[in-house]
């Protein structure tokens, strides 16, 4: 298993202390800086590995950074502390942005990112909890993370514990029936300590979600399943911070985060082929230029 990088972990703790007293503008500025660094390293990881899911990595980056750097109660040097908040990336194919975020938050050295998907690397193409600190459950096959997060939230509720659980889902992933099974379980058990964020980029591997198997009226579906619904721009850190505030209704909270697949690199934005296309050397240079 990878272990925390102490200087990075200290840097992360300092950042959290700083953000606790910062204005919203100051917080957003910090989070934007980290998101940009995460996106740059994702480009490099995928170019080196010649594999990856860059479009979804970029749509979910601001959500991941907001959660890890701005909201969740975590300690990179004690990643399994019992009272930690739980974060589950159900759309596990976007492992590159998760790994990059974890590295920037001190869970392991940034140098490890260069091994992404290399033989025997801890950084599998999909997250593995046994190998990577900060990963709570192995994901990759879709429709798995939501039930697991529901179980974690249920455990906290049974214990009267104050830690929270956040799960990030892909919108295409919501075509899996197991997610709606979990949505019913979470509302039945009134898991106000559970937040589900949907990365609503409107594209899935082969086509637009609405042309594949339509999800709309998406917000109504969540409400009708007994969830408190919040809709935000998933690239607006301030809006995400606010949406990640605790439930006000006693119901679990669903955040539909409207995002753009490939966000941050103009020639990738909202284009289905960048689901898992690998950039050429020229495209890597152009992407890194845009992400300065």
């Amino acid at each position, binding site marked *: 298993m990878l272990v925390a990088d102490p200087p990075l972990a200290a840097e992360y703790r300092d950042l959290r202390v700083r953000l606790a007293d910062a204005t919203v503008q100051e917080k957003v500025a910090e989070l934007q800086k980290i998101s940009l660094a995460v996106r740059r390293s994702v480009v490099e990881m995928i170019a080196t590995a010649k594999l990856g899911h860059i479009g979804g990595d970029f749509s979910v980056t601001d959500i991941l950074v907001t959660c890890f750097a701005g909201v969740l109660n975590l300690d990179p040097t004690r990643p399994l502390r019992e009272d930690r908040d739980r974060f589950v990336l159900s759309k596990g194919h976007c492992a590159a942005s998760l790994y990059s975020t974890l590295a920037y938050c001190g869970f392991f050295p940034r140098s490890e990112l260069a091994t992404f998907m290399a033989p025997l690397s801890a950084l599998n193409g999909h997250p593995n909890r046994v190998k990577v600190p900060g990963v709570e459950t192995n994901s990759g096959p879709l429709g798995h993370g939501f039930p697991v997060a*529901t*179980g974690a939230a249920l455990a906290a509720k049974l214990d009267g514990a104050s830690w929270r659980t956040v799960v990030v889902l892909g919108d295409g992933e919501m075509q899996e029936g197991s997610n709606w099974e979990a949505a019913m379980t979470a509302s039945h058990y009134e898991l106000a300590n559970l937040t589900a964020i949907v990365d609503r980029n409107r594209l899935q591997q082969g086509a637009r979600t609405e042309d594949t198997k339509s999800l709309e009226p998406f917000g109504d579906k969540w409400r009708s399943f007994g969830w408190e619904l919040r809709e935000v721009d998933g690239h607006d850190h301030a809006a995400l911070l606010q949406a990640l505030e605790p439930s006000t209704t006693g119901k679990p909270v669903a955040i539909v985060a409207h995002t753009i697949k490939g966000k941050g690199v103009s020639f990738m934005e909202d284009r289905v082929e960048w689901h898992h296309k690998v950039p050429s050397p020229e495209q890597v240079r152009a992407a890194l230029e845009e992400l300065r």
Partner: protein
Amino acid sequence: MSIVTDATTYDCRQAFADELIRLAEADERIVAVCNDSVGSSNLVGFRERFPHRLINVGIAEQDLVGVGAGLANGGKIPFVSAAAPFLTGRALEQIKADAAYSNTHVVLCGQSPGMAYGELGPTHHSIEDLSWMRAVADLPVVVPADPEQTRAAVRWAAANPGPSYLRIPRFKVPAVTPPDAPFGPGIANTLTDGDDVTVIAVGTLVSRALAAAERLRAEGIGVRVINMPFVDPLDVDVVLAAARETRGIVTAEEATVSGGLGAAVASLVVAESPVRMRILGVPGVFAPTGSAEFLLEHFGLTTDGIVAAARELLGHGLHS
């Protein structure tokens, strides 16, 4: 070790339920998770004693196993219980990814396995579960043969920090486990000694194997009966000793022959110590309708069937 079987039969489901409650009294991390199967998972008593620790996710098996994995992540020890065909079939990928590959302390309890739901037809027969569960890495597969072993399996699974699959028999069965028999991964119970032929059995077939051994002893044939509660990991030493010291091995299981106990034993002996084998089970077909007992007879999963297979291995088949 002596044979302890007698004519009395005992309910393994009750043993499962009683032991789970007993453990839960002592360890509040233990929770039960089921899919609208409070009755059929024999959790009524658990719910009465611990109403808040009985999680019912409704008719949703994928959610069932995922929620179990999440409860384990949150520090609980979930006993995830459902009818064996649906638990292992519908949630196979969750068992692989969320329980085994994620190495979570989830105890998967397959209720009413094998032909227990005989009349309900092949959709409800759980004959593939041993093959499916064996195929998943890092997932011990446990088939208790009697109430004593069922209690041991529940205790072991609660204490073992990883995932496991327990196949809880529905039938009442005779007691076959000697007092103080060791229980754990890779540990079999040798119930009778004999140098002519070995019978390795699991679950409901163990008492039948013992009865077959008695019949064959009367004919002067010495039978070594081995109860192998851990189908995975096998007791390698006991199997290889049987392969070397007896003239053949019969395996018997209430499951398909494609990938279960017999296949596990065969793939071991063929590599290390080849020996003639007969693998008794369901031979790659969907069963007809009928009671469990009828179906076991239909497929030769009986004392007579084991006797015939042993004789055949020894070359006595034409003379009996």
